[in-house]
């Protein structure tokens, strides 16, 4: 098997990368400009020379057929979720239903101008209001803003809300606590929002170190940012105590919703004591990732945070005399932190998330989380049985929707690193897990299978990992030099950073 996966250049490898700027020829074009149908005025009089561009931007000159072929060929140099297993931990790579693409493309959604009079956008506002209500119920928190554009944008919203909350009470606080397992966006957000990051340690069970938290939680702390289950895939059993400590010093408790897919219908952040939650619609709610976005990061908040929510908010106004309810955009919010972006947010992602929630309903969402947890535990058990010595679980024997393995024993005994295993998985047709995160686990590998994978796929993945470990026992160089079958092989990243070439020289 391994031999077959180490041989010769594939057709894709024989194809040299050529950019769109290197294709086409002078005079070619794809766009036919509409005729000038108005009386021609002197262009120089309409736009004086000093304001004008002297040389056209050196864009490609290319025909439509060449353009289509260029980008279709490029697409074939991508691995994607529709082609294979993508257990990228913390990213919730679940199936993206195609119904969502179809409904989002309906002209009534796709060609609706964001500044259309609300009376003429009632369908869109109702959809947003319904999505808000659904997310509120899922989070267990009463108020929702859909505005943020991604998870980290939701985090910024949450920390700025926290600032507004404290300031409104006449308090100035300077610190925000984040566990050492936190995603990088958490501390980065804290700095952007003008606070100082204070790290909290992790205990032997993989949860927050309560003593450390107690020692660091004081009246200068504005907020604790947490995800639960955390990035180790472990549900923090002390969550109620954590909430008591944080609220005891008057701070807010923030829930990074990247891991919500573990608990839908089973437990709600609001019931755990969180004041603010962000959702990643591009994780738990199937918005396709698009190779790095678009995403969407709505937030849900408790009553005490509500006055500070971003503007505008959607209001449902009861109709009188049997008239249907109306939906309005309310801008009159004196305590609001303001806006985090233009218009109403990434509406196209709302259409998809709402379609998903309506397709699954209460039972389906709960089934999604339960199956996600089942699949993760099954894969963990299979891997433990097959490669438990080389790749032990970092914490515990059970997990939630994802789990962390440590490649440290494998590195020590077989001489291959987590990175090598990941690269060798590419030859087996799998997307590797998240690697080297969370930071506190040596040679970490964070695996999140999601609920939409079959048992057969999980089995095949576990066997591929086992085959790579067995192969490394024979000859570690194979993994160390992997991959072999991909369009390109290992790339010189250090060189790229040292002498950055970030655009085509023209």
């Amino acid at each position, binding site marked *: 098997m391994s031999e077959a996966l180490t041989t010769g250049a594939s057709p894709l490898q024989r194809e040299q990368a050529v950019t769109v700027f290197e294709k086409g020829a002078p005079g070619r074009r794809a766009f036919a400009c509409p005729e000038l149908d*108005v009386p021609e005025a002197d262009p120089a009089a*309409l736009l004086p020379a000093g304001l004008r561009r002297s040389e056209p931007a050196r864009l490609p000159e290319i025909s439509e057929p060449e353009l289509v072929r260029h*980008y*279709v060929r490029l*697409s074939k140099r*991508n691995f994607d979720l529709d082609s294979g297993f993508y257990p990228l931990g913390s990213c919730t790579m679940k199936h993206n239903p195609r119904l969502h693409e179809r409904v989002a493309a309906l002209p009534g959604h*796709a060609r609706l101008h964001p*500044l259309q009079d609300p009376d003429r956008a009632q369908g869109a506002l109702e959809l947003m209001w319904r999505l808000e209500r659904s997310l509120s119920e899922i989070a267990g928190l009463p108020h929702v803003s859909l505005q943020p554009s991604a998870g980290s944008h939701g985090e910024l919203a949450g920390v700025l809300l926290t600032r507004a909350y404290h300031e409104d009470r006449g308090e100035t606080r300077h610190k925000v606590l984040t566990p050492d397992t936190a995603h990088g966006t958490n501390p980065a957000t804290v700095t952007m929002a003008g606070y100082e990051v204070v790290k909290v340690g992790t205990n032997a069970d993989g949860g927050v170190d309560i003593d450390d938290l107690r020692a660091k939680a004081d009246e200068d702390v504005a907020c604790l940012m947490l995800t639960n289950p955390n990035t180790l895939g472990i549900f923090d059993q002390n969550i109620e105590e954590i909430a008591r400590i944080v609220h005891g010093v008057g701070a807010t408790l923030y829930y990074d919703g990247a891991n919500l897919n573990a608990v839908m219908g089973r437990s709600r952040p609001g019931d755990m004591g969180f004041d603010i939650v962000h959702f990643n619609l591009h994780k738990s709610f199937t918005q396709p990732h698009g190779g790095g*976005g678009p995403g969407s990061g709505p937030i849900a908040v408790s009553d005490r945070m509500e006055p500070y929510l971003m503007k505008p908010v959607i209001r449902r106004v009861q109709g009188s005399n049997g008239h249907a309810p109306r939906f309005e955009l309310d801008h009159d919010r004196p305590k609001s932190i303001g806006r985090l972006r233009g218009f109403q947010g990434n509406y196209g992602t709302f259409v998809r998330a709402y379609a998903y929630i309506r397709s699954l309903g209460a039972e389906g969402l709960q089934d999604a989380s339960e199956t996600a947890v089942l699949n993760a535990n099954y894969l963990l058990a299979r891997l433990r049985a097959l490669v438990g010595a080389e790749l032990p679980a970092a914490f515990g024997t059970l997990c939630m929707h994802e789990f962390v393995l440590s490649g440290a024993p494998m590195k020590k005994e077989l001489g291959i690193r987590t990175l090598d295993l990941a690269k060798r998985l590419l030859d087996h047709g799998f997307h590797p897990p998240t690697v080297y995160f969370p930071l506190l686990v040596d040679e970490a590998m964070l695996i999140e299978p999601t609920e939409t994978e079959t048992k057969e796929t999980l089995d095949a993945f576990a066997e591929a990992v086992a085959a790579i470990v067995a192969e490394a026992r024979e000859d570690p160089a194979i993994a160390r030099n992997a991959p072999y079958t991909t369009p390109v092989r290992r790339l010189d990243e250090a060189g790229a950073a040292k002498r950055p070439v970030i655009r085509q020289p023209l």
Partner: protein
Amino acid sequence: MSTYTATTPQDLETMLAEIGVASIDELFAALPEGVRLGRPLDLPAGLPEQDVYAHLRELAERNVSAEDELTFLGAGMYDHYVPALIDMLMSRSEFLTPYTPYQPEISQGGLQVMFEYQTAISELTALPVSNASVYEGPSAVASAAYLAKLANGRRKVVVSRGVHPHSRETLLTYAHGYGAEVVEVGLKDGVTDAEAWAAAIDDDTGAVIFQQPNFLGAVEDAAALAEAAKGSSAVVVGAYDPIPLGILRPPGECGVDVAVGEGQPLGNRLDFGGPSFGFFAATEAYLRRMPGRIAGETTDVDGRRGFVLTLQTREQHIRREKATSNICTAQALNALAGVVYLAWLGRRGLVELGELLLQRTHYARERLTALDGVEALHDQPVVREFALSLDADVRRVIERCQDHGVNPGYALGDDYPEHPGGLLVALTEQRSRADIDRLADVLGAAVAAERTTAQVTA
């Protein structure tokens, strides 16, 4: 069981046995009693695909989209034609469904698209450095001010009142967090008041921000605005509409340090405001302070040309609290549409489009200001959008026009109380001379009717 999961009873039994538990409930045993929901979510039951489709279609039909009326709405997002090949490419699994390209060997398609996109944005802006996209326009403006804060530590941001109201509001929200003071400079004759602008810039100023064309559609003298900041330490930020950049002097030739903007006009749908993308370009000096992903060219072990995410030591996953930004997921798919659109327009097409809009905008301004009760709000050069001043209640005029299937534009009064009669009218290549003539007829009649009504009630 939802239709997106696949566990059969037989699978379940095998899997639980392998795990060594008796039930799914046991897998959730870690949840303390006090935080268990203990009831089903209070949400409607799931629906079959065809019913969800019907429901979503019904909601769509209660919106009046650009398909249903003749619209001249712009004000930041524009109804340009999106070529069919963009729909096709954006719906391809290989572009639609991957994550951020963390494994470059199997992500060369997406990485090369980023590299091409960066090249296109650099060409458009005449600035050497572009990232691979940020969320959208207004937050890009706020992020540019944050870049300035990190670069020079000065606490004041000077912003023109010609910058999109949403951008100014977003800037205020962000700036309150990282502790900057925002000072607004007013407009004079439709453009940034040059004297007030120069007077506002001092030793404390970290960034100055204008928009091109500004929110009232006027073309600013970008070079003069940038010049006024020379000699100070301020980063000069311009927020640009990308379409007129085919004919407007690019930011890189005007002394602008950072050019940002809303990318929607480049091949993205209106989508009621998003998803679209924001572009972010800068001079070489700010390369290592850029927010977001950047793709770079390199080679693989066999010497093949390839692309990777690069300069990652700026980013949150490496630098954490010291990162230049918190952005992670951005807008890669929308940026793909952007670069495909620019390639589709091509070198000459972008210029032709700019010249066409210039002529039609001029024609529309002439036609509409010839109407009774309608004047130009300013006389500055305009390229795709212009502001009118109506001698009538603007909202009611808009309503009257909409009753005739025409949306004449955006009422300026809420954002600019100094222009209670302001109406902002935008053009794209989809609005022909016949459409403009129809707008003139409908708007003329609506203004006349509204003035008559107002006289009667007075």
